């Protein structure tokens, strides 16, 4: 659970200069073979086809960079990038704030702590598409019915039918599912903080809020980085919850990148969406490099 200390890092660099025992390469082989066959080879084939006009089957021709040129003038694809990044940033913030506060609460001396923890973790084990369909029903039927009964006009129309606000519904549902994962990591982080620092702070006269801001937050900072990276990565690939909730609608306002890529398989746009996927791949690599360089030095993954 502890973060890596400089001392251990030092031993790691020393180790790498020695001759590596061949048996480790053998251990590596099965997963390397599977990874190559299941990910690298299809990936390269996909990039190859992004320079053709293939629809995934039958005859095709090389078209050079035509697909890439078309993508940069395609509002649907540009909008999907905008939506996905905006949605990811908002969701990461929402998820981490809620998960952190929940973790602090669930780590305090409260009644039925373990029962409550169990309840809060349940959303994590339910499949995203099922959650999405249940919430879809709630947003489309239950909430408007409640709004009509209570006489609140803005609640009477479904959130999902509003092109400007449908993304809010997606953030809510995604956060509902993603909070438990972050929560667990935060709880682990909070548990690892030794109690003597709190005692010392108390003796020095720090209030509860000061303790939270000046001790808890800095000491779990590493976990915040982890949660933000893992969360952001997951939200960029958003697919199932959006399909179940809005299916990209109303109009084209909530189509994520993953959704537009998959339409390539479903709607005969294989090569074009492979080009899109290639661009997304490059973007993802750039983000990873950025995140790695930001987090290097401390809290390395």
């Amino acid at each position: 659970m502890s973060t890596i200390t400089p001392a251990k890092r030092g031993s790691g660099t020393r180790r790498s200069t020695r001759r590596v025992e061949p048996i480790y390469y053998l251990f590596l082989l099965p997963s390397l073979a599977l990874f190559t066959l299941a990910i690298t080879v299809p990936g390269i084939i996909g990039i190859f086809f992004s320079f053709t006009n293939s629809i995934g089957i039958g005859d095709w021709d090389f078209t050079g960079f035509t697909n890439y040129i078309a993508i940069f003038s395609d509002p649907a694809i540009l909008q999907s990038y905008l939506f996905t990044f905006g949605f990811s940033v908002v969701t990461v913030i929402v998820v981490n704030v809620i998960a952190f506060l929940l973790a602090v609460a669930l780590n305090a001396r409260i009644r039925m702590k373990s029962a409550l923890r169990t309840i809060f973790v349940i959303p994590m084990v339910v499949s995203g598409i099922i959650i999405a369909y249940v919430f879809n029903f709630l947003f489309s039927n239950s909430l408007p019915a409640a709004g009509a009964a209570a006489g609140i006009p803005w609640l009477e129309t479904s959130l999902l039918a509003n092109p400007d606000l449908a993304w809010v519904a997606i953030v809510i549902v995604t956060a509902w599912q993603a909070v438990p994962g972050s929560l667990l990591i935060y709880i682990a982080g909070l548990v690892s903080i030794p109690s003597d620092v709190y005692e010392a702070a108390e003796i020095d006269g720090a209030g509860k809020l000061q303790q939270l801001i000046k001790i808890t937050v800095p000491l779990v900072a590493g976990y915040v980085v982890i949660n933000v990276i893992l969360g952001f990565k997951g939200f960029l690939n958003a697919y199932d919850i959006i399909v179940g909730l809005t299916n990209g609608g109303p109009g084209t306002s909530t189509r994520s990148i993953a959704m537009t890529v998959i339409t390539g398989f479903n709607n005969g746009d294989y090569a074009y969406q492979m080009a899109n996927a290639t661009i997304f791949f490059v973007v993802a690599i750039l983000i990873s490099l950025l995140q790695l360089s930001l987090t290097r030095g401390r809290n390395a993954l």
Partner: protein
Amino acid sequence: MPVPGGAAFGPHDERTTVSVKLTRTKRLAGLGLGLSLLAGLLSGCAGGDGTETIRFTFSKREAIPFMTKLVNEYNASQDDTRVVLDTSGVDVVSASFVRGNPPDIALANYNMETSRFVERGALSDLSDTDAASRVREDLQPLMDQYGSYPGRTSALPYSIMASSVIYNKEIFAAHGIEVPKTWSELIAACDKLKAAGVTPFYATWKDDWTIGQGWFDYSVGGELDTIDFFKKLSEEGADVGPVSAVSFQKDFGQSVGKMLKLAKTYVNKDAASRAYGDGNLAFAQGKAAMYLQGPWAFSEIAKTAPDLKLGTFPLPMTDNPEDLKVRVNVDLAAWIPEGSKHKDAARKFLEHLYKPEIIEAYNKSQLGFTPTKDAAVNPDPRVEGMAGYYEKGQVYQGPSVLVPKTIPIFNYTQAVVFGADPATTLRTLDADWARLAFRQ
């Protein structure tokens, strides 16, 4: 859940020295194990016993019970072939082509989607089947509108659907309304219904396809010659835009405007959050006078209200009754992929499907029109209102099915109904069309 840090293996430098002498044979054994695991993963499905199993794709929701029964009867009647019904849907089928594992036979909606398989030669020739010789020749233009592959009959029509406005005869009679034959009569009828507190149209805008196939197609198709428009549009190709001879923004604007007039004034208040299933239920309960759906909705409505008196009429979009037309589509076409490994068994099953008693029973049950020469005319009173137009050829194919599926036309029509500027959306449609032509 990955946990941060953790010098997982600790100082293992000492441990490794133990196994320096791990013999070469053991290493080879490990390699062999890895490879055999891999082989097991890759070999996938293996052959079976004497019976040949074919995968039959059929995903028309309303008719799945009918087809399940038919397949079970076929399986019980002979021992050579076992047909497995696959109802997993259109998208899965398309992806299965890409993966090189298409179904052995399909009865599927015939649209631009299938057109790609036809044009790139992914479907096998059916011209020498008995079924092909019994299909009405005058239906060929409907099939050809989606392209063809030289020298092949790639698909055979199985069920033709005509669709138009479904209306509740009881409500129309109660308010003394005749079936409208012109745009002004339609507006007058709507106003009369609205004044009497009856919702004229039940709309289900949550499902974008219901806007595309109903509201959009009936409006545009009722006013515009779609065959001619799309022919010219294809000729324009990448030049489609504000200055081209035909374009969505130029030719669709008027019809879309009329559609919006109906959509904004005469629908149920909660249309935006209602889906297709809600619409069928509400219409069956008499909550509106008219419903822009195809005949497939009848069987769903009948589940709630089996005795409801329903009829159909083409949506009048002009003030000339001569312009009335009904929307038709090849609701089901049969095809056998070139990539199927069980073509003979699939063909045998195809002939079974086209037996007069089966194809006619199917179309009767789904209120479709049977496309074979010897078929009896569909007698159901609910589609009577369209039969005359269908026989006289006053038909059109909806624009939403003639636009390649890679352009999200359903989403666009939904956006317009939800308040997006129609002119901007139609310009986007033009740009999408031009971009598609540019890269394909």
